């Protein structure tokens, strides 16, 4: 079992709104590990679009993403890549 935390910076223009949060939750849900996201002391479930949106994370926000489970590493890589690609949203590149 591995528990890993990584700090990731949101790069897309409008931050963690509906679509990015949805894509984040969808990506996290592909893995068995537990995923938690922390911003400014708020910790929420990483597999919930609603919870992620409540973080009010805008562009430039640093998220502490913690994955706990056998596939934690893969999961975090996947999420980091998604954030790095600015969620593939053409208008927010």
């Amino acid at each position, binding site marked *: 079992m591995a528990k890993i935390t990584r700090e990731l*910076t949101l*790069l897309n223009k409008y*931050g963690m709104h509906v*679509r990015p949060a949805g894509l984040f*939750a969808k990506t996290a849900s592909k893995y068995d590990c537990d995923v938690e996201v922390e911003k400014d002391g708020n910790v929420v*479930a990483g597999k919930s679009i609603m919870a992620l949106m409540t973080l*009010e994370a805008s562009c430039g926000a640093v998220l502490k993403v913690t994955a706990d489970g056998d596939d934690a590493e893969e999961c975090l*890589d996947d999420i980091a890549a998604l954030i*790095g690609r600015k969620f593939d949203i053409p208008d927010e590149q």
Partner: protein
Amino acid sequence: MLTIAGLATARGLAEGPVYLYRGDDDIPVSEYVVPQGREGDEFMRYKKAVGDVGRDLESLIAVLNERNKGGEDAKVFEGHLMILEDPILKKEIGKLIVEQRVNAEAAVKKGIGKFRKQFERMNDEYFRERVRDLDDVERRLLRALLGFAKSSRLELTEPCVIVADDLTPSETVQLPRHLVLGFATNGGSTTSHVALLARAMGIPCVTGLGFVTQKVKPGMRVLLDGTAGTITVNPDEQALADFAELVRRQHESEAELKDGLKAGTLKDGGQVRIFANIHPGVAFGALKDMGAGGVGLYRSEYLWLNGGKEPDEETQFEAYKAVAEYVKGLGDDAYVTIRALDIGGDKTVRGITVKEANPFLGNRSIRYLLSDREVFRRQLRAILRASAFGRIQIMYPMVSCVEEMREAAVEMAEARRELDEQGIAYDRDIPVGAMIEVPAAAINAKAIAKYCKFFSIGTNDLIQYTMAADRSNEEVAHLYQPLNPAVLKLMQHVLETANAAGIPVSVCGESASDPVIGILWASMGADMLSMSATYIPLMAKVLRRLTRRDLDEYKAFALGFDNGETGDEILDACRKWMERKVPELDKLLI
């Protein structure tokens, strides 16, 4: 007559009768306690409603995708589907029903209400607006539970200006577009759903009008100015005449780019080439409509990032071939510049990039390619093979020194030899160039140029490395200054060096898309600006108002600061210069 000012949300003008839409903000819901032992049934009622709404949303998404492939509308409802299915929300509502025996309707309202409160407290307006998404999902669930019709419909029979408190995405998207002249809403902002969709649909929209719904009656005549952000109720003769003049001018502006003149043409007939930046995975069908003269930056690394691993040679070849064939349709002198794998830094792929203490100064891009020659060779082979199908240029990202160009040339020669041996065709004159984005390469441009058929300046990294400031870090973002004197000097040096060496030089960083900055690069010697396609029409409009002499004057102005001015002061002065030369600049900017 009454004129109300709101927010200029989607540009354009509309004149017509009011359709006053009251919506159904309040679906009356009574709360009661479910009899003991029936909570399981009540929970099943909620689950069935979730299923019904889910199917409705899925079919709506399918319809929208059919109408507009890859469009934004459908994405909104994909988000709603996820909200509907959100595990935390479902658990919350389920607990209310099963543990507190609250009826399903009230449980839905309470469960969603809890999140709504959190959103309403947010400081960021863009996030606050997302309450509308919750409203939309809530209404769908309530209608399903109460057996109401699936959604309230706006019944339009003639072209109207829709006046409403605010509109949910469902309401906006289902409108017959040909009958909607414009939107005017009490609430909302420039980032609300009605705003985003109005802009996507090209319909004028004014939001944040306060109590406009109380000031109009159905059928009343209004003038809506989405560019100025006003609505005029019961206009008098003078207002009507002024508006007619505005409409005439708008038509002129729209017609402006339809005269067949190539994007980037100057007032005196001169030409600045405008190309598009694209990446695989995003459709490039619209490039022609936007006026792109070619593709100045094809970000090949997205083949890696999208797939999470290295794509094999065939996959790469197919992708490069597709874009090479596409650019043929953009003109006789069109081509695509494929950037070799630009990975590392903030672009990581598991199994390829490794964790580094300082990734932006680490094994990135050409450095990585030279450290894994197999990967490099496979990419070069794929690009060379594709060059038999259309005009391609190859550029190496993050070049810092001559050694890298030499080493890359060795690999290129080897890849060509392999293809020759196998009898595979490729463009034998394929131009190879360097991206200039590391200050060392900029300073040493003359030597690097000896190994290049062209330069492409990546200003994002060049500014970041010159100023040693990460622009995504709020604390230091102010140091990321595109027109800092140091950046200007480097840019001038690179552009002049390329011009003197007789090789074309383009700028493909984000700064190229800002008319104030991009046009400065052009005035200083850039032959081509490459930018996101959506910025091309604006750049084209500004350029056609300037002559080559204006550009020379602009260059002298911008390079003339020599009294300790800051980067921000220079940028400000340049913006003012441009506004003086192109007085309608702010109108073009919408």
